[in-house]
């Protein structure tokens, strides 16, 4: 059976990566801003001070501009598995589709229904009633992230399902294993909190802009302080959870962690695992399987990854070699599976069962088999096929190594920035630090960038698998023609470009305009809608 045209696979991957990364420009702000808005409104309800209501409404308006595209581009994600990853959807839909469906039922309905009331219900709900609605929106958006990341967790560390040779797919067998996948849980907290960092820096940066311009002083000072404190806690938490996630990768995705660290040789290759350096800078070269240049700090790698001074961390070269026998068993498994599919032969089933856990590695061999047909592999040509397929078992090291380092450096930068910002804000000395304020303004887009590189680390590092160890990415795509892919890619590029242009235009426009508190000018109009219409 022929494999899918490699250029169609590449175009499908490109489309998925672009639409997913684009979607995630808007998601972190939604995750973080909903809770920030809830916090501001809580202060309003407790203290009764109008300025906190102004804050909730003004930041809510900027939030809404961002939220719309997040919703729109999320639609694409829900459908792209079916439109472009048909084999994937068939192969794991029974377990992967479930968290997506539950997400709709439990989280997205809640978020989307209450966000309507959050914006339209100010005059129709009591103060605590509206506050409850805001919290339900925030809860909905974060629960939504939980179920999406449970689904993603299954791709990284597939547990809670087993392969059924009668239906040729993975079938759901343990709800608890799926939901309490450590990878999913750690990634959920890491991702949500990364959203909090994004929201905090967004509010802090725009407030810094007003402080620099000496506009909306009280409004900006209060917003800045709340965001800075929110940011200190979140940025510390995001770094801590990132470490937890790295350790999980070490346990269940050894190829990813070795690629992240640019580790070609085993960490004890130099004599002692403890002394192995953590690379600050390196130029990994996939062809020669070495780093062209590397600068590292000794005695950091082992404690960082394995939380130990004596554990050997396997390098990419030995991981490749370890994959060899698994590929051989995988070929046996798939040939037996195909035979079983034809006539339900029990001997074939027994052979398959004996080699089942390596079947995914058999798929990897398919592209190097004669005529791409595994049944044509003989003892004579097997070694050559396995040797080629081995090289495919590790991800692109350069991409994984550098996207991780950019993300991590940004993470530590945020900790420092929020710490200084909170310090000067609490001492009321912000206006004397224009440099810090400018830094805050210019840093607004950086958390989004960190999130994007985080996703690239996670998903590029997962390659060559779409479901780690079970289904290679090149096997997972739909068998479209190149023309179809060009059509959809061009359409997405055009539409998404228009969207981002409109988004940035509105965001800059309303952020520059700033809050328009009516009560200073016309205190008697307190019952009327909160802000005067922007002058156009």
């Amino acid at each position, binding site marked *: *059976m022929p494999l899918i045209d490699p250029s169609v696979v590449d175009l499908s991957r490109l489309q998925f990566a672009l639409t997913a990364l684009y979607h995630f420009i808007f998601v972190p702000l939604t995750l973080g801003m909903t809770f920030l808005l809830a916090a501001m409104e809580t202060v309003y309800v407790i203290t009764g001070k109008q300025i906190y209501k102004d804050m909730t409404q003004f930041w809510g*308006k900027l939030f809404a501009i961002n939220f*719309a*595209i997040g*919703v*729109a581009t*999320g*639609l694409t994600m*829900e*459908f792209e*598995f*079916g439109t472009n990853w048909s*084999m994937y*959807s*068939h192969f794991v*839909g*029974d377990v992967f*589709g*479930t968290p*997506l*469906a539950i*997400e*709709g*039922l*439990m989280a*997205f*309905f*809640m978020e*989307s*229904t*209450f966000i*309507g*009331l959050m*914006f*339209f*219900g100010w005059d129709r709900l009591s103060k605590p009633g509206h506050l409850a609605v805001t919290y339900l929106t925030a809860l909905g958006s974060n629960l939504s992230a939980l179920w999406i990341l449970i689904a993603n967790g299954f791709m990284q560390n597939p547990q809670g399902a087993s392969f059924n040779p*009668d*239906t*040729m797919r993975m*079938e*759901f067998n343990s*709800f608890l294993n799926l939901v309490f996948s450590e990878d999913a849980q750690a990634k959920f907290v890491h991702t949500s909190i990364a959203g909090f960092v994004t929201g905090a820096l967004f509010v802090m940066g725009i407030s810094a802009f007003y402080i620099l311009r000496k506009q909306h002083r009280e409004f900006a000072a209060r917003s800045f302080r709340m965001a800075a404190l929110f940011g200190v806690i979140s940025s510390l938490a995001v770094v801590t959870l990132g470490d937890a996630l790295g350790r999980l990768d070490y346990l269940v995705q050894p190829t990813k962690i070795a690629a992240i660290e640019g580790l070609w040789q085993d960490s004890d290759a130099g004599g002692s695992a403890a002394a192995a350096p953590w690379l600050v800078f390196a130029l990994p070269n996939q062809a020669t399987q070495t780093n062209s240049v590397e600068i590292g700090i000794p005695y950091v790698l082992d404690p960082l990854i394995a939380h130990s001074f004596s554990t050997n961390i396997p390098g990419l070269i030995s991981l490749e070699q370890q994959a060899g026998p698994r590929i051989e068993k995988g070929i046996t498994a798939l040939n037996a599976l*195909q035979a079983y*599919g*034809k006539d339900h032969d029990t001997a074939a089933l027994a052979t398959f069962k004996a080699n089942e856990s390596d079947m995914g590695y058999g798929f990897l061999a398919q592209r190097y088999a004669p005529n791409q047909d595994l049944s044509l592999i003989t003892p004579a040509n097997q070694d050559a096929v396995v040797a080629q397929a081995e090289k495919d078992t590790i991800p692109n090291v350069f991409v994984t190594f550098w996207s991780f380092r950019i993300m991590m450096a940004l993470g530590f930068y945020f900790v420092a920035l929020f710490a200084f910002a909170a310090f000067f804000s609490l001492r009321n000395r912000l206006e004397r630090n224009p440099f810090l304020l400018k830094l805050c303004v210019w840093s607004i887009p950086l958390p989004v960038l960190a999130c994007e590189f985080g996703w690239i680390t996670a998903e590029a590092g997962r390659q060559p698998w779409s479901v780690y160890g079970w289904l290679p990415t090149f096997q997972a795509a*739909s*068998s*479209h023609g190149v023309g*179809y892919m060009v059509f*959809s890619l061009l*359409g*997405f590029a055009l*539409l998404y470009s228009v969207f981002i242009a409109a988004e940035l235009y*509105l965001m800059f*426009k309303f952020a520059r305009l700033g809050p328009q508190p009516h009560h200073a000018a016309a205190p008697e109009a307190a019952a009327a*809608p*909160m*802000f005067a*219409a922007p002058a*156009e």
Partner: protein
Amino acid sequence: MELYVVLKVIWAVLLGVLLSGLAVMVGMDMGVGTLLRFVGKTDVERRTALNIIGPHWDGNQVWFILGGGAIFAAFPTLYATSFSVFYVVMILLLFSMIMRPVAFEYRSKVDTKKWRGAWDWAFLISGAVPMIVYGAAFGNVMQGVGFHYGWDGQYYQDESFIFYLLNPFALLCGVMSLALSIQQGATMLMLRGEEPIYGRARKAAIGGGIVGAALFIIGGFWVAHISGYAFTSPVYPGAPATPLNGPAVAQVTGAWLHNYAVYPILWALPALGVAGMLGAAVMNSARLPALAWWLGAIGWISAIFTTGASMFPFLMPSTTNPSQSLTVWNASGSQYNLGWMLFFALVFTPIIICYTSWCFYVMRGKVKAEHVAHDEHSY
């Protein structure tokens, strides 16, 4: 009956419920989008029309997302195959759908004719195109689609997109779906709008109901002449779900009316459909939009269940390899999965219905033009 078969049947019915929720709730908002340029001549009128569904469109749209997610989980092979087989229209559907959330949020944020005019066109496209595609999908699926599977479950497409894009029966279904969405949307505009929107919407609502009913009846007669599908060897509903080793299936003209011959009670469904659509038109003409809205919803839902009842247990037959046709029996998820999904559906559906109703209750009453013009939060 064994538990697995019961679960498969329950999920087939729930699939109908989801498609109905999508049609009624999302269709209503899309009808408003389609009609926007017609019911609103001035900018304030258009904004008023948008704000009638403003607090609810986002929540309603989740029916669409949940529909995708639930088909993915409950009928994974159907999701995997149908979305890929109809690639070109699915992508057109997506392109039009994703304009809508942005159009709602951005349209009224800049006060220039060009900007708002452009977004008004986006509303027209994102209202009409998805509803036509939605109906046409039913029409196409009823006639079967060209696809088959390899030994490992990978699907292969055997027909060009031209066939499903320009297929007369499918187009009829598409226009019917558009007409019904216009009926539901216009009725909502009457419910919460005032003159002159009310009067214009009333005309559209009556027209939508009559056109919808007429096309539904024509489609019914047409179905007797298209090739349906029928099993020609024994079927085991409780077997593991895979289309790979299916029973023999034959194309038989008029087979889609077979279930109605066996169970004449099923004729109640199309009868209810026509009665609902025409009844809604009568009620709208009598200026009773609340009653009309519910009658229209009954018409929509009956039309969807009419299709389901005529095809059951087929979901998406294959023209090129009929024995690999997707059915309720062979395209569903595993028993364990269907059980867990049912548990979540039973727990959360009542909760969703409660808070959605509460949300409509909070936002009840007429949307007034002068209020929209002065309220900063409005669209």
